[in-house]
C-alpha cells in the first residue's frame, strides 16, 4: 500500500477537475431541464468521459487523498449527470461514490489503521459470502436476517449472490423447451403451425466451446423450478385420467406412478414472468413468422421437456439417450403471442406430463415380457402424447 500524498496534485489534479466539470455539465442539463434523445446521449457520453478522466487521474496518482475526494464527488454527481432513463446507473454511481470514499479513507489512514480498516472490509465481504452460501432452500434465520437487512445491496450490486451449491443435492436431468406455434388462417383460409425447440445440438453450438448451447440450456433451466408439493385435487386427477381416454387420448406414463408424479407446476416467477417473456420472444422472432409474412400467430403451446438420464440398466438393454421416450414433456400451457398470457388456466392438462411412450402393439397379441422396443420394434407402437396434443403435428420435424 502506497504512502499518502497530500501535496498539490499537478496535472492529474487538473485532469480530475476536468472530469468532474464534464460530469457537472451533464448534471447541469438535469437542473436546466433540457431533455431530448440527443441531449440524453450527450449526457451519457459526458459522464462516461468525465469518469474516465477521473479514473485516469486516480490510476496515475493512487495515493493522493484529494483525488479520492474529487472522485467521490464525481461519482456522486454522475447520478444526476446520467439522464433519467439510465436509472440503473444510479446503482453504479452509488457504488463508485462509496468505493472512492473508502479508497480515500484508506489512503488517508496511517498504515496500521489502514490495515485494520482493510481487514474489517474483508471480514464484512466474507460475511456476505457466508450469508449467500447458507442462503438457499431453508436458510438459518440469522443468514436470512443478515442477507436481507445488511448484505442485500452489497451482494446484489457485486453479483456475489451465488451459493455455489453446484450439482447439489445431486445432478439432475436437463430440459429442452418446445414451442408449438399455431398461425391464424392465412388468406386462403388455411391454418398451419410450426415447431421451435431449443437447445439443440449441433444447431445451437455456434462457438467451439459450446457456450452458446449452454446459455440456451440455462434458459430452459429457468422453467425447471417447480413447486414441490402443489395442491392436486381429486378433480384435477380425474380430469387428467379422462384426458387419457379415447383413441387420441393423452396417455399416462406407467413408469411415473402415482399420478401426482406426473404433475409439475412451475414456480410463480417461472410461470408468471419468465415463461410469458419466452413466449413473447418466440412470437417476435423473424425466423418463426408465417412464410407469407402477413399471417399472424394465433397461439403458442409450450412444453418443458425433461431429458431423462438413462440408468445403466436401460442402456444395457439397448435403450439410447436420444430415444423418443427419453423425453418427458410437461405441458406449460397455451399462450397469447402478444401478451404472453396463459389462455386457459383451467386446461385439464396444464402442468401434467404429456408422455411419449411405447405401448404393446395390439395387433401382436401377447408379447413376451422380455421383448423390448429396441430389439423387437414390431411388437410395440410409439404413442406420442405431444403429437396428439397438438392435433397430429409432427414435432420431430422441428426447426
Amino acid at each position, binding site marked *: *500500500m502506497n504512502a499518502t500524498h497530500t501535496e498539490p496534485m499537478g496535472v492529474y489534479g487538473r485532469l480530475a477537475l476536468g472530469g468532474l466539470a464534464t460530469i457537472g455539465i451533464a448534471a447541469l442539463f438535469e437542473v436546466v431541464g433540457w431533455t431530448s434523445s440527443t441531449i440524453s446521449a450527450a449526457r451519457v457520453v459526458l459522464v462516461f468521459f468525465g469518469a474516465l478522466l477521473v*479514473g485516469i487521474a*486516480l*490510476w496515475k496518482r493512487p495515493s493522493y487523498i484529494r483525488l479520492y475526494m474529487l472522485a467521490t464527488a464525481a461519482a456522486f454527481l454522475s447520478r444526476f449527470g446520467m439522464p433519467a432513463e439510465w436509472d*440503473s446507473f444510479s*446503482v453504479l454511481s452509488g457504488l463508485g461514490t462509496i468505493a472512492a470514499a473508502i479508497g480515500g479513507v484508506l489512503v488517508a489512514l496511517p*498504515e496500521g489503521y489502514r*490495515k485494520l480498516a482493510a481487514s474489517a472490509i*474483508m471480514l464484512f465481504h*466474507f460475511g456476505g459470502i457466508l450469508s449467500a*452460501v447458507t442462503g438457499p432452500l431453508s436458510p438459518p434465520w440469522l443468514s*436470512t*436476517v443478515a442477507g436481507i437487512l445488511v448484505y*442485500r*445491496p452489497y451482494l446484489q*450490486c*457485486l*453479483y456475489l449472490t*451465488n451459493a*455455489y*451449491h453446484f*450439482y*447439489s*443435492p*445431486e445432478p439432475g*436431468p*436437463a430440459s*429442452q423447451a418446445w414451442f408449438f406455434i399455431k398461425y391464424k388462417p392465412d388468406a386462403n383460409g388455411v391454418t398451419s403451425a410450426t415447431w421451435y425447440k431449443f437447445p439443440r445440438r449441433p444447431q445451437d453450438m*455456434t*462457438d467451439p*466451446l*459450446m*457456450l*452458446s448451447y*449452454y*446459455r440456451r*440450456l*440455462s*434458459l430452459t*433451466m*429457468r422453467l425447471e423450478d417447480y413447486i414441490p408439493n402443489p395442491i392436486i*385435487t381429486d378433480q384435477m386427477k380425474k380430469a387428467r385420467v379422462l384426458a387419457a381416454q379415447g383413441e387420441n387420448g393423452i396417455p399416462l406414463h406407467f413408469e411415473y406412478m402415482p399420478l401426482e408424479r406426473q404433475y409439475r*407446476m412451475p414456480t410463480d416467477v417461472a410461470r*408468471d*414472468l419468465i415463461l410469458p*417473456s419466452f413466449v*413473447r*420472444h418466440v412470437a*417476435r422472432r423473424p425466423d418463426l413468422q408465417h412464410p407469407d409474412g402477413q399471417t399472424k400467430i394465433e397461439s403458442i403451446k409450450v412444453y418443458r421437456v425433461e*431429458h431423462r*438420464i*438413462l*440408468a*445403466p*440398466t436401460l*442402456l*444395457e438393454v439397448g435403450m439410447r*439417450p436420444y430415444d423418443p421416450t427419453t423425453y418427458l414433456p410437461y405441458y406449460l400451457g397455451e399462450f397469447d403471442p402478444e401478451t404472453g398470457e*396463459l389462455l386457459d388456466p*383451467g386446461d385439464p392438462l396444464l402442468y401434467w406430463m404429456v408422455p411419449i411412450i411405447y405401448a404393446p402393439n395390439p395387433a401382436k397379441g401377447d408379447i413376451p415380457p422380455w421383448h423390448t422396443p429396441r430389439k423387437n420394434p414390431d411388437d410395440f407402437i410409439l404413442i406420442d402424447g405431444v403429437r396428439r396434443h397438438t392435433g397430429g403435428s409432427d414435432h420431430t420435424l422441428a426447426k
Partner: protein
Amino acid sequence: MANQSSQPSGLSSSESGWRRAAQAWNNFFFKPSDPTTLGLMRICAGIFTLYVHLAHTPDLYHFFGPKGWADHELATALRKEYATPHVTWTWSDQQSYNIVPPMERRVRQAFLLNWAQHLPADPTTRREALEYLLSLPPNAAHAGEGLAFAEYLVIRPKSETSRPTSDNYRLATEEERRQLLGLLTKPTIEPVDKNQLPAFVHDLTLERRQQIASSVERFVKTMSRTSPGDIAMVFLHLNQQLTIPISARRETDPRSEFQRTMLFLTGQPEPNQPDDDRGPFLPNNLEERRQVLEYITKWMLDPRKVYAQGQYIFSFWFHITDPRLMAVTHAGVLVVMALFALGLWTRITSALTWIAVLSYINRCHQMVFGMDTMMNIAVFYLTIAPSGAALSLDRWLEKRRALRELEKARRDRRPTATWEAILAGPRPSALATFVTRCFQIHFCFIYAASGLSKLKGPAWWNHQAIWNTFANPEFSPVVFEPFMQFVILLAQHRWLAEILMSLGAVYTLFLEIAFPFLVWRPVLRPYMVVGGILLHTGIALLMGLTVFGLFMLVLLMSFIPPETVQRWLELGTKAKESKAVPAPPARIDSVRV
C-alpha cells in the same frame, strides 16, 4: 502494524499472544508480494472473458435486446419491482402474508383486479356486501356448499365439462336467480329442494333464511362487473382457500386461508392496535387499492408487506436498445476486454471490463450459469488487484520507459536506483498479497459450499452422481459417438462402472470438503492444487462445461506462488533474485498462536 518478531519485555503472555496473532495476520494478509501470479491470472481471465463475450455476438439481440428471451418487460419487472420479503421477528408467518393470493396468474387477475378492485370503497358497505361469505360456517364442506349455492346464483356452466374460462360460462338469468332464491325463502324447505340448497340452511328459521337470501344477493351484486369466466375463477379460489388451514396463535388470528382472505378484504386498522400484524388490509382508496392489487397479482405479496422492491443491479443493456448502437457498444466492450487481457491501461480497462461483465449478466440473468459467477469473481478481484503490474503491456511500457530514463540518468550522471528497481522486476505489493488472499479464501468458500451441499444428495452417497453427470444427454458429450461407446461399455460392465463412479464421487467430495482445510499446509498445497486441476479438467471434458472449468482453474491459480509462475515463464533469473524480497502470497508462514 508492527512487524516485531521478539516479545518486548514487560508484556504479559496474553498481550504477547495478541501481538503474535496480529503479526501473523499482518504477514498473512499484508506482507508485500510479487504480483506475477495475478498477472498470469489476468491474462487467462482476460482471454476467457473475451471469449465468453465474443460468443455472445451472434445472440446479442436475442439475449440482451428489448425483445430478447428476457424482454424489456421482464427485465424491468425484476429490476424495479422484485419483492424482498420482510424478516419475520416472530414464529408466525402473519408478518409476511396478509393474503395468500391464487397460484395461477389468470385466477389472481380475476380475483384481485377484476373482482376485489371493484368491491365498495366504503369499509362498512364492503363488509355488508361480503357478509354472506363472513357468515359461512367454519366447516369447510358446509362452507363449500354455501359457495356453490352463491356461484349458481351468478353463473351457469354452458356444459357439464365447462372449465373456468369466459367461454364456458354464462351469467345466470334473472329468472334462474329468482327461482333459486325462492327455494331459500320458502316457508318450508321440501326434501326435493334440499339438494339445491346448502345443508347448513336446511334447519334454519324462515327469518334467518330470509336474512341469508338478502346477504347472498348483496354478495352476488359485487360481481356485476366481473365476466362469467372470472366469476368462476373467484369461486374456484375461494373454494380452494376453504380447505387450507392456518395454525392460529391468537384468538383473533384467521384459522384458514379463506378467513385470512376475508380479513384482508374487510378488515380495518384499529387505532388502539398499531402493532396488528394481520394487516394491512384492502385499501379503501381505489387508486391505492389498484396499485396494491396489481403488485400482488405480479409478485404474490402485498407491497406494504415487502421489505424492499427491486434489485441493486445495473446494466447498460437496460438502456441501449437500438440494434446498431448495441453492436457498436458490444464491439467497444470486446476491445476493452482485449486490452484488459493484454494488460494495457489495466487500472482503467479492468474496471471497465468488470462493469461490462456485470452489465451482460444483469441484463439477462436467465442465461447465466456458474461460469458467469466465476468470471465475475475473477474480474472483480483482478480489478482491485495490481493485476497489470506484471506480465502486461503496462509493465512492458514501464520497463521501456525505465530503460530510457536509466540511460538518460547515466548520461547525466544522476541517481539510477529508481529505474534499476523498476527494471529488477514487478514491485512487491501488500495489495497483491491482500487480493491473492481474498481469491484464496473465496475459492475455499466455493469448494466448501459445493462439497458440503452435496452431502444432502443420496446420489452422492450411493455414488450415482457421477453417472448422472456424464450420462446426461444434454450436458455431457454422449452426443459424440466415441464417448457414447464408452458410456455403453460402462453400462455393460457394472463392476467397472461402479468402481469409476465410486472413485469419482469420493474424489469430488474429498477434494471439495478437504481442500479448504488442507490447502493451507504448504506441504499439501501442491497436491491439493493438482487435485483441483484434475477435477476441473474432468468437469470440462466429461460434462462439457469447458469455460466454467477454465475459470475455476484461473481462481485456483491464486494458490500458485509467483516464483513458480516466473519459472514457468522462464523468468528464472528474476525469480532467484526475488527470493530476497518478502515471501510470496501463496506461501503461508507457519504460525503458532
